[in-house]
């Protein structure tokens, strides 16, 4: 066992001529005997390179110091796999000699291929994870980053820019640079850089906008890992802005009903025919905020209104539809707000209103539904949902009013009983006086 392990260390590295079958065997062995977490340097994948570099490390950020957290180190894959050289030699000159295949720090344009040596090799990767994907490099070369790299631009992101260099962690570890919560800042490393971005003629405020958007807040403030971050819309390795036609499908991954209603309604066909981008025309992209009713307006003075971006104020039929839908939603949200305020008021007076709270949730659901059916751009289809929500809100309002009425009723009741008790007390007092 010991000998096999040593042999594997020696021969590991896809640069070796006869590496294929050995790797297969090694991979299987690794899968069967995973390295214990925090294995010592003897056991780890670094060999003599790691030991020596760690000893001479200047700070905690040096390659060797940070490598212990790296997934490759944890899988006993050492320095020579990427850097070449002989990790078994004690002599630095020999270990880092050209004869031993030492390449030092790889050039930026070589990085994808270097990582791809293993990561695009299905048979090799399978040894570590039977369902490992191996299409990342392929995807990468279809991305804007990849295409530019091929054309000689070394400023674009390569594997190591997003995944880190010597501290590469799996995506499901919160400390990983590609963990969902960390993606915006990882992409932002370059995309927030104004000088760099302006040289490509693209804005550098996407991360800022995203952070303030409804998605950014859900992810970064509420820590809802399901909220979309950069790569959920742009792709991971094949990062590219979604095309005009595919925008609606990208959004529709989560906003399925909205997309379905939109596509099957009158608007969907118009947008498709004219090759206009769906969702983003109204909702924008990075700075998507929580949508409000104010977006539907035919009023020229309405700054938040969106209909007039395309329609002319004189389009009679759309104008009617917009006004009708807006009225339905306004009534619904106003009734809901009134009901909620009333219930809150009753609650602050110490009344029991848990039943009203339950119904309020129902009304919220109807508001969601009405807003969803807005995407039919057909007031008649939205109407039943909005009316139902208004009806529930009215009931809640009545419950809240009853609670507040009860509150005063209790006080009036108390006043009456006090009056009676006082009368009784006074007559008793007089009676006592008359007896003495």
């Amino acid at each position, binding site marked *: 066992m010991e000998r096999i392990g040593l042999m594997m260390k020696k021969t590991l590295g896809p640069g070796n001529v006869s590496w294929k079958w050995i790797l297969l065997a090694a991979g299987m062995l690794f899968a069967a005997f995973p390295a214990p977490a925090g294995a010592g340097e003897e056991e780890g994948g670094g060999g003599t390179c790691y030991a020596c570099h760690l000893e001479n490390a200047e700070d905690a950020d040096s390659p060797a110091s940070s490598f212990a957290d790296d997934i490759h180190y944890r899988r006993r894959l050492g320095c020579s796999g990427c850097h070449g050289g002989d990790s078994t030699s004690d002599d630095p000159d020999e270990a880092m000699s050209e004869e031993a295949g030492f390449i030092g720090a790889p050039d930026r344009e070589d990085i994808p291929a270097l990582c791809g040596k293993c990561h695009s090799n299905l048979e090799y990767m399978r040894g570590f994870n039977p369902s490992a994907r191996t299409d990342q490099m392929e995807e990468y070369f279809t991305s804007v980053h990849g295409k530019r790299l091929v054309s000689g631009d070394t400023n674009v992101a390569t594997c190591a820019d997003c995944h880190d260099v010597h501290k590469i962690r799996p995506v499901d570890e919160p400390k990983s640079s590609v963990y969902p919560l960390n993606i915006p800042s990882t992409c932002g490393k370059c995309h927030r850089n104004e000088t760099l971005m302006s040289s490509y003629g693209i804005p550098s405020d996407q991360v800022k906008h995203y952070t303030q958007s409804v998605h950014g807040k859900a992810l970064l403030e509420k820590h809802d890992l399901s909220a979309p971050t950069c790569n959920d819309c742009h792709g991971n390795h094949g990062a590219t802005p979604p095309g005009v036609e595919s925008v609606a499908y990208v959004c529709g*991954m*989560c*906003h399925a009903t909205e997309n379905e209603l939109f596509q099957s309604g009158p608007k969907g066909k118009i947008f498709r025919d004219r090759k206009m981008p769906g969702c983003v025309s109204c909702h924008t992209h990075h700075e998507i905020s929580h949508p409000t009713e104010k977006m539907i307006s035919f009023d020229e003075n309405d700054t938040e209104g969106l209909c007039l971006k395309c329609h002319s104020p004189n389009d009679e039929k759309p104008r009617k539809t917009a006004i009708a839908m807006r009225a339905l939603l306004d009534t619904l949200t106003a009734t809901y707000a009134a009901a909620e305020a009333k219930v809150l008021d009753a609650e602050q007076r110490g009344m029991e209103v848990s039943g009203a709270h339950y119904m309020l*949730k129902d009304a919220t*659901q109807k508001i969601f539904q009405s807003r*969803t059916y807005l995407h039919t751009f057909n007031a008649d289809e939205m109407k039943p949902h909005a009316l139902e929500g208004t009806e529930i809100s009215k009931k809640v309002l009545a419950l809240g009013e009853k609670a507040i009425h009860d509150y005063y009723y209790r006080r009036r009741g108390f006043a009456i009983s006090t009056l*009676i008790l006082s009368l009784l007390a006074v007559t008793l007092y007089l009676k006592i006086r*008359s007896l003495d």
Partner: protein
Amino acid sequence: MSSSESATGKLKARRRFLNALLGASTAAWLVSVFYPITKYLIPPESAESNVSSVKVGKKSDFKRDSGTIFKFGRKPGILLHTSEGDFRAFYATCTHLQCTVQYRQDFGMIWCACHNGKYDLNGVNVSGPPPRPLEPLQVTIKGDEIFVSVQA
């Protein structure tokens, strides 16, 4: 009539008045005590304090391959009748943002309209945003009737 006689008459009248007043205020007081007590004794409309079990309906009311939302206390529940004929029930509150889920016959899955979250027929979240499975409920069938209760 002498002055002392009129004085005793006045005294008597005063005493009678005082007794009457005492009687009246005692009676009023009794009403103010017994009114709330009587009201309290009348059972409220929903005569049960909590829901641990609900009769959802008859077996024949539910088609195969369908799902029905029902009120389980103060939360919505969903009763599934699978194509295999099983009855299953869950709290119908999506574990993502608390929307109410529904059964989608076309997918054969439980589905949340809000963000396209999907659960399988065991209530396990299989795709989309939901972070956790749906909370299961217990289904008991007595004769033709279906009861849903909290899981013990």
